[in-house]
């Protein structure tokens, strides 16, 4: 009997070794494909040259494109995909709501407002970076949404925890609208036409400005996020039957919710500040992965992080090649995939 229980877990653990390989391949392919397609061999040779001075003869311009632009961009795309997918996993588990997603809950909208206030309206007088603006905006939006939800539901407790979860989503919608309006207002008031076009592009998600100096923070938050979620995997599982169910299983509900949702807000703030507000990754990827690996977080967390990373690298490649000679915002690509998936989740939820 024990064997029956242990086998799928062992198999899943063995399969995890494919994760870094798959991720590596995705990043390499993402580096090779673009406006000008470079052979995979050139990419590998460039990496070998840069990493351990292998000395292959590679065209200087090709090497520059690969090392300075494409590679950091692909790595950041992977980190963002992983981070956003994890955020969806965490929010859906803790709020018991299949539609919980940073984009829908206004975190991304808040981050955008913060970034726009700093870059265009000059809040902070140049002493504050755009990243800090986005981070502050995400945390502020998060606080607003939670407070509003708290006011609506009169505090989560008793058998009314589910009502509180619904309130959070409604509050998120209100928050998103408010912060999107603030962003639009700031742009309309302070930005010139050139700035406005640039910022609109950034808001839909844009990785073209990514350089090596952006990579560290993205890697840090995404790997930190995976580690934190794995550490709390059993706590996330325990929410299966709601917050009271988790409390009865010995989970400190307030502490776990507080720390994981705060971590989520920080993660979203950092990622949005680098690449703009990319929607639907946090919604689509976790749901797809639940079908593949089940609902247990020991498998769901790594699977979602990996799939999110691969998904966003692929979305970035598609955004660069789908319209020849033009780069689409990556948010357009994720929304084209995500909106129908969102509809599907709604329909399936209604049938239950």
């Amino acid at each position, binding site marked *: 009997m*024990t064997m029956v229980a242990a086998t799928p877990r062992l198999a899943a653990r063995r399969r995890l070794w494919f994760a870094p390989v798959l991720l590596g391949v995705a990043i390499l392919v993402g580096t090779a494909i673009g406006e000008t397609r470079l052979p995979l061999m050139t990419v590998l040779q460039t990496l070998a040259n840069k990493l351990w001075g292998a000395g292959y003869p590679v065209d200087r311009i090709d090497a520059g494109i690969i090392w300075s632009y494409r590679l950091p961009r692909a790595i950041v795309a992977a980190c963002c995909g992983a981070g956003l997918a994890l955020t969806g996993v965490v929010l859906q588990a803790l709020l018991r709501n299949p539609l919980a997603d940073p984009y829908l809950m206004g975190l991304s909208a808040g981050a955008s407002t913060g970034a726009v206030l700093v870059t265009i309206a000059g809040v902070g007088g140049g002493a504050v970076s755009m990243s800090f603006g986005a981070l502050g905006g995400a945390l502020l939006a998060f606080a607003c949404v939670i407070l509003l939800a708290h006011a609506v539901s*009169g505090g989560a407790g008793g058998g009314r925890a589910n009502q509180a979860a619904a309130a959070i989503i409604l509050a998120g919608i209100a928050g998103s609208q408010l912060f999107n309006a603030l962003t639009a207002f700031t742009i309309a008031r302070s930005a010139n036409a050139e700035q406005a076009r640039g910022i609109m592009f950034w808001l839909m998600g844009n990785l073209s400005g990514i350089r090596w100096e952006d990579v560290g923070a993205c890697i840090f938050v995404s790997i930190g996020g995976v580690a934190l979620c794995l550490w709390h995997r059993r706590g996330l599982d325990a929410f299966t*039957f709601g917050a*009271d169910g988790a409390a*009865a*299983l*010995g989970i400190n509900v307030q502490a776990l919710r507080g720390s994981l949702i705060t971590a989520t807000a920080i993660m979203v703030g950092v990622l949005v500040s680098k690449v703009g507000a990319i929607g639907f990754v946090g919604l689509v990827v976790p749901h797809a992965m639940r*079908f593949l690996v089940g*609902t247990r977080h020991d498998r769901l967390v790594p699977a979602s992080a990996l799939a999110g990373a691969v998904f966003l690298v692929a979305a970035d490649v598609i955004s660069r090649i789908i319209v020849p000679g033009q780069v689409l915002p990556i948010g357009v690509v994720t929304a084209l995939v995500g909106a129908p998936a969102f509809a599907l989740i709604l329909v399936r939820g209604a049938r239950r």
Partner: protein
Amino acid sequence: MRIEVHALSAKVHRVPLLQGISLHIERGELFGLVGPNGSGKSTLMRCLAGLRRPSAGRVLAEGTEVRKMPARDRARRIAFVEQQADTTDRLTVREAVELGRTPYLSPLRGWSEEDAAAVEAALSAVEMTAFAERLWHTLSGGERQRVHIARALAQDPELLMLDEPSNHLDIRHQLSLMALIRDLPITRVVALHDLNQAAACDRIGVMQGGRLVVVGTPADILDEALLAEVFGVAATRSVSEGGATHLHFSHAL
């Protein structure tokens, strides 16, 4: 586990849900809670489980206040099956029961043979072994109820609390569940609707309007006057040869 409740009150927005409840439950006792809908049975159980903060009074388990126990320790000793707990997650019966082992696991301490054995034993106790790989949303209400009870058993508690456990069950499973509960060697607190089932408890407490109106053995307290007063029904009582109490309800008063 010995439970003492001292002058317990609970409120929501200044509306009292429980008022001045004092009660002792002995080690190994099967204690039934009965009372009409809305009389406060679930609220009292949530306070006993440490899930709800009382507005006044104390709940002690073996002398320690339950609200002050570390959550993990409490969950190893007290298991609680809520009246309604559902999920939209696609998880299997076995996974749902495995959740009961949560208080024994930690981020670094993984799944062990002992945990697997506890899950198997719990599944077989509620006759759900054959359903172990079924998905939650394919189960009937009664089957879900039995999985919840298996989850609580997998917690290996000293105090098991069940809030109207036989609600969705057919008559055979009601009887086998009551037999299972009666045979468990731990302290049990069970909220019950069926007064004939309550008659099988060691002692029962009768709730009305947030107060505990009477506590005693079924033979002592379940009589025609009480049924008329608290439940508003006309009933006759008979005692069978084995000494078991049987109630026959005729009409609402």
